[in-house]
């Protein structure tokens, strides 16, 4: 943690200087809305902390359902991120490094899940991979694989929603990276794949990591597509967001407790990110 300590030491005077700057320079018409915006973002989180049932919290959190939901959430989000990495990074490479007809259109399609309401994504997944879906029926009859309303279904839904974040992030990094490094590698005898693996991949690793974290966070909070495609079965498909929503209807205190857990996870991730990627090494 010596790094963190050094950072605090360093940022101390810097912060003071910034504050001085605020008093001198920022015009009121900008400052007031900015503070309002900040308050708007923080207020709900404060409310969550204020209204938290601190006395009963230990009991709420030690219930098996909470742990089940949390474990499932972490598992599925991680699996979805892994799946996104395996198929998303090559897709990003294809979009960034090759030229084929309709590339712009494909690129737009890849980003579609970013703006598509997740529930619509869930419905679409059902029609594609559901038991009677255009692909799902074959999966069912040939391999006996059923995706909807299973844990795998949760992972599929989360991957569908989260992968675009990774692809966009990695593609941007790839575009910014100098393709001539790959050329240099090929003149040294590396095949295009070796060049990608040994030169490009290490060069874009920070972009991949950032994209993976974005995707993981998105997958962790996924609600609409998951509940539509995988349902809400405790222990099998009930992730934390679903548990929160369900608890809110019959046990608000439990909902707050669950929300606190998710908040804690998010803050932990953010802190970890800050240490590793945001702060200048």
């Amino acid at each position, binding site marked *: 943690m010596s790094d963190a300590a050094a950072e605090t030491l360093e940022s101390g005077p810097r912060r003071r200087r910034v504050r001085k700057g605020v008093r001198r320079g920022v015009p009121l018409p900008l400052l007031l809305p900015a503070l309002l915006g900040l308050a708007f973002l923080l207020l709900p989180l404060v409310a969550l902390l204020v209204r938290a049932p601190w006395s009963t919290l230990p009991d709420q959190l030690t219930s098996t359902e909470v742990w089940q939901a949390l474990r499932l959430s972490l598992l599925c989000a991680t699996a979805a991120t892994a799946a996104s990495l395996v198929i998303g990074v090559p897709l990003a490479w294809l979009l960034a490094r090759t030229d084929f007809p309709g590339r712009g259109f494909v690129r737009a399609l890849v980003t579609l899940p970013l703006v598509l309401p997740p529930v619509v994504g869930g419905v679409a997944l059902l029609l594609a991979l559901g038991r009677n879906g255009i692909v799902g029926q074959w999966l069912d009859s040939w391999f006996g694989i059923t995706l909807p309303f299973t844990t795998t279904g949760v992972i599929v839904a989360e991957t569908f929603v989260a992968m675009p974040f990774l692809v966009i992030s990695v593609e941007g990094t790839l575009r910014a990276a100098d393709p001539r490094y790959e050329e*240099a590698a090929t003149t040294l005898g590396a095949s295009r794949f070796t060049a990608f693996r*040994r030169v490009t991949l290490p060069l874009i690793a920070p972009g991949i990591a950032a994209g993976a974290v974005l995707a993981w966070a998105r997958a962790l909070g996924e609600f609409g597509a998951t509940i539509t495609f995988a349902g809400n079965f405790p222990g099998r498909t009930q992730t934390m967001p679903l548990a929160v929503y369900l608890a809110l209807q019959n046990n608000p205190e439990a909902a707050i407790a669950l929300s606190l857990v998710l908040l804690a996870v998010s803050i932990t991730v953010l802190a970890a990110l800050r240490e590793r990627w945001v702060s200048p090494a």
Partner: protein
Amino acid sequence: MTNTPPAAADGARPPQGLPAPDNESSTGGAGGNPIPAEGRVPPTHPHAHPPTGLDAHLIVDLKTFHLDVTLKAAPGDVVALLGPNGAGKTTALRTLAGLTPLTAGHLHLDGTPLHRTPPESRPVGVVFQDYLLFPHLTALDNVAFGPRCHGATKKEARAQATTWLTRMGLAIHTTTKPRHLSGGQAQRVALARALATNPRLLLLDEPLAALDARTRLDIRTQLRHHLAEFEAVAVLVTHDPLDAMVLADRLVVIEDGRVVQEGTPRDIARHPRTDYIAQLVGLNLYKGQADGHTVTLDAGPEIATAETLSGEAFVAFPPSAVTLHRTRPTGTSARNLWHCEVAGLETHGDQIRADLTGELPLAADLTTVAAAELDLHPGASVWATVKATQTHAYPA
């Protein structure tokens, strides 16, 4: 630029196929070139054909650009592609490396056709203009990259890389990342990386352009040593005539995608055939019809020459051969006299270079004192004289 260095390093080059003598390794620096300990580096290249060098006809058709260049070089040759920006030098180099496909033509290296071979399978090493050292790898692993790709184990590759870095005088920088290397060090790592695959063709794209003037001088000398030692064909691209003349034993001048002149540096410096080359080597160059001791330019004026020629001919003379007068000189022995106007003046070393227009456009060099005494200024009317003995005429 008339003081051309002798055809680069011919004397220093070891007999082809033999490693360099070991007796200059005493300094351990990059100047001396010790034989790598493992003896892994030079030739022993298994080849179906005896090394015959490079035989290439490079044709590339892009929408806005047409390249048509023929290149031939024997093993041990260092050929410089010299030309202005956008002439197609780098494109030619990329086709040799396989990074840009040929539209037509051929590329044979030691008798093996390569024009359909992908870059990773060509026995070609490239030193890129800004080196393109892999930033995430140490100097050692950058150099070991090529041997690794050619099937060496990690240990073997590193051993070879160490040998190469030692040879370049970089033994203490093996664990350094590229961003901590100076320009000159990075250049040598890039050269070591390109040589570590034992290429039969070494390509260097503006190898000294990224260096500051001081480093450039040192690195140019070192590079000349390394190129002299290299037993296969080396082709370098540059727009700097000095680099070309110091490093290469043959120049190929490219303009607009075509070869306009080729030959030894001395030959090209003495007999420029285009304005670009004449400017590079600092000569006034004219083309016209020779008849005895007179060359009549297409535009009208005549130039008296020392040589006797007939037919199409070039006449060249250095700016320092021009004498300027504010009034028409009388009793001058110079046989060439033109009435001109000063178009511009600039300092050129410790001299003033006057750009003249008029009967004959030319450049003239004179001392600062002379320029002041003549009261030269743009627009001034002057008479220029050149002695016939200071011109040099040769057939076009």
